[in-house]
């Protein structure tokens, strides 16, 4: 720890003696290197989870069982969810945090540079556990990403591997969050008060607090499953006096803040990009901060809206229904602020702005289906149908993922020193948004017509929409290879990027050269 802290003071003498090749990446404590590794890791997991999703959609292309057995289908749904949530979306945002937070607050590095290295290197073993769980007897975990008992208590060793993987991923997230909170609270440049911070830092500060509060609760819940499985406890076993519904309460106490963990940093990224391309300061900065905090606090009192069908008293259903609908207020404040930022702005639509605008449009649709699902009597009808699948893909794919793409295009010139290919970037956006809607919009109709989620086969009347959805899914998947090509060719070369490639961009990150040198802000900048 001591060496870590003295690092900024002595690195000048070390800079030339750095290990090269693979050892550079294994031993690095540099926030930019670690951020890059996080982003590549999450993109790899995004492709793995995407291949699982395409396997699911292939099976669902036609009614009947064609490609995979129902048991394998269940494993694919479960692992698609776990890998996308814990392996793709969350590490991607941590990668952004590592790269951008020190640059945006004028710090030399993250607070605990070695812990930062450890946080990252915990991820590959966890991913490996998830992947090899497909090859153990009984296959991978198959009870859904929510790991509900009794299935999760009865399943084979694949579930143990998933639980260990989640423990490791959780530990990594907690360490990453401690690092982020400490960096933001203690290492801001002189004059950079909290209320002058870029909104991306604000949303990550709040997200990190959420992670520290709820990841340990998930760890507790899956530990209880583990002891139920192997040590004869009966937390969730009805025969021993336990209650499976208890798990749902504990899980969703984690799970609802978790969905905001996956969207708040996306709000932050979009709040950076819209002002840059509207060439106006963000409208209602203070209200954005308070709205983000309100969303975070409210997220702790709405968890039971995921389980309206377990048979809770009407009073509880009403409470959770109204509390959930209340979240639409701060979320609405944010959406209106983004639109007001655009109002009378001198807007241009480069790829980051396209993705940010696409984010607002499609995320808002996902928000509205969320409001529909918040209404208890409707939710009881739609629970566990494809309507729910459509809803959370609208907020997670078109929400979190589109914001991630927007952020990559926005900061790629800073990271690589080159401009990406604007034509291909725009093509990536339009193909993504069109194929996304082909895939998921029709799933609303499937859900309203009563098609349950997590099924490998379905009744004939659902055949047409499922076929459309599968075609869209393959289009969306292949489009992401275009994204890989754009990023790789941007790293390899391209037009030289200026220090500030976007005319309206604000923030300290644009005061350093492009590409950002290995060490930045060794002398803290002064913010007026």
């Amino acid at each position, binding site marked *: *720890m001591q060496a870590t*802290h*003295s690092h*900024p*003071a002595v690195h000048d003498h070390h800079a030339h003696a750095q290990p090269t090749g693979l050892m550079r990446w294994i031993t690095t404590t540099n926030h930019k290197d670690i951020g890059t590794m996080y982003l590549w890791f999450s993109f790899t997991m995004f492709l793995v989870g995407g291949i699982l999703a395409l396997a699911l959609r292939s099976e669902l292309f036609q009614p009947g069982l064609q490609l995979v057995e129902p048991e394998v289908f269940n494993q694919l749904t479960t692992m698609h969810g776990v890998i996308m949530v814990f392996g793709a979306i969350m590490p991607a945002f941590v990668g952004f945090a590592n790269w951008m937070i020190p640059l945006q607050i004028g710090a*030399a590095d993250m*607070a*605990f540079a070695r812990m930062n290295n450890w946080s990252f290197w915990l991820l590959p073993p966890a991913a490996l556990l998830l992947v090899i769980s497909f090859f153990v007897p009984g296959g991978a975990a198959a009870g859904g990403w929510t790991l509900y008992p009794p299935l999760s208590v009865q399943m084979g060793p694949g579930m143990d591997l998933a639980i260990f993987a989640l423990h490791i991923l959780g530990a990594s997230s*907690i360490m990453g*969050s*401690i690092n982020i*909170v*400490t960096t933001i*609270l*203690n*290492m*801001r440049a*002189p004059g950079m*008060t*909290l*209320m002058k911070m870029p909104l991306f830092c604000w949303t990550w500060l709040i997200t990190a607090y959420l992670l*520290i*509060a*709820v*990841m*340990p*609760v*998930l*760890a*507790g*819940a899956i530990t*209880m499953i583990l002891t139920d499985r192997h040590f*004869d406890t009966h*937390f969730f*076993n*009805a*025969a*021993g*006096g336990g*209650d499976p519904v*208890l798990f749902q*309460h*504990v899980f969703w*106490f*984690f799970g609802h803040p978790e969905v905001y963990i996956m969207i708040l940093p996306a709000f932050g990224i979009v709040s950076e990009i819209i002002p840059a391309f509207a060439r106006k300061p963000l409208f209602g900065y203070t209200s954005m901060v308070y709205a983000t905090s309100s969303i975070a606090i409210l997220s702790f009192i709405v968890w039971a809206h995921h389980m309206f069908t377990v*048979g*809770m*008293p009407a009073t509880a259903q009403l409470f959770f229904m109204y509390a959930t609908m209340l979240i639409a207020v701060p979320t609405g404040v944010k959406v209106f602020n983004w639109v007001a930022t655009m109002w009378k702005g001198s807007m241009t639509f480069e790829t980051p702005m396209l993705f940010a605008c696409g984010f607002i449009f499609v995320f808002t649709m996902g928000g509205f289906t969320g409001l529909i699902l918040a209404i208890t009597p409707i939710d009881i009808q739609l629970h566990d149908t494809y309507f729910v699948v459509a809803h959370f893909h609208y907020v997670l794919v078109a929400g979190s993922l589109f914001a991630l793409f927007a952020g990559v295009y926005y900061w790629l010139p800073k990271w690589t020193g080159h401009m990406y290919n604007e034509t291909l970037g725009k093509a990536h956006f339009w193909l993504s948004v069109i194929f996304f809607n082909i895939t998921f919009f029709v799933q609303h109709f499937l859900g309203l017509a009563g098609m349950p989620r997590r099924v490998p086969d379905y009744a004939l009347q659902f055949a047409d929409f499922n076929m459309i959805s599968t075609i869209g899914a393959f289009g969306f998947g292949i489009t992401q290879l275009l994204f890989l090509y754009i990023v790789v060719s941007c790293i390899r070369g391209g037009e030289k990027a200026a220090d500030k490639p976007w005319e309206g961009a604000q923030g300290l990150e644009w005061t350093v050269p492009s590409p950002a040198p290995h060490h930045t802000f*060794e*002398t*803290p900048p*002064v913010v007026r």
Partner: protein
Amino acid sequence: MDGGNDRPAPMQPGHGGPDAGDTASDNRVTLRKLLVVTGLMFGFGFALVPFYEKLCDVTGINRIVKRDDHKPANTQVDTSRSVTVEFDANLRSNLPWTFKPLETSVRVHPGEIATVVYEVSNVAGRAVTGQAIPSYGPMLAAQFFRKIECFCFDKQEMAAGETRQMPIAFVVDPSLPSDVNTITLSFTFFEVAGRAQAGTPLATAAAPAGVTAPQSKIQ
């Protein structure tokens, strides 16, 4: 929230000034605080278990295997209406038992005490312990169905080949909504793993008279 972060000290012309040392110790303090929060939240996850049980107990949501001993407001038998109570029996976890009610349904007046007998046999060549869990259809009926005596209040240890008749005595609360005319009571027996082999004092105490140690040795 901003306390302690505005550094009034003048800027040092380089790094590694007194400022760097302060930040390092500030960071360690923050790290310790956040680790404490992490530990507390891990404990909180487990604290939700007794909290949930207490809440269900107090509100009466989940008192399914406990005696309903609180007095109904009205002890009068409501002879003006009758309710059909249907009985169902299930086995789970490959429990090597047979389990069935002797009568599949009874008609009772709300407020009237009724008793039904279930018969259960252990067809395995070993002692097995099970726990019965009730569930109700419609779900609403659960809160108006008062069990006075039930084999589901205890774990049942069955010797090899043993057959036993077990009663359930109940009252349907007269405040049962008038649109409920039929209540289905479904019991599912779950095997309590490890109990029979271990022969813990708890399991022996819970088993009714008739299961004696010599009997369980005959196999």
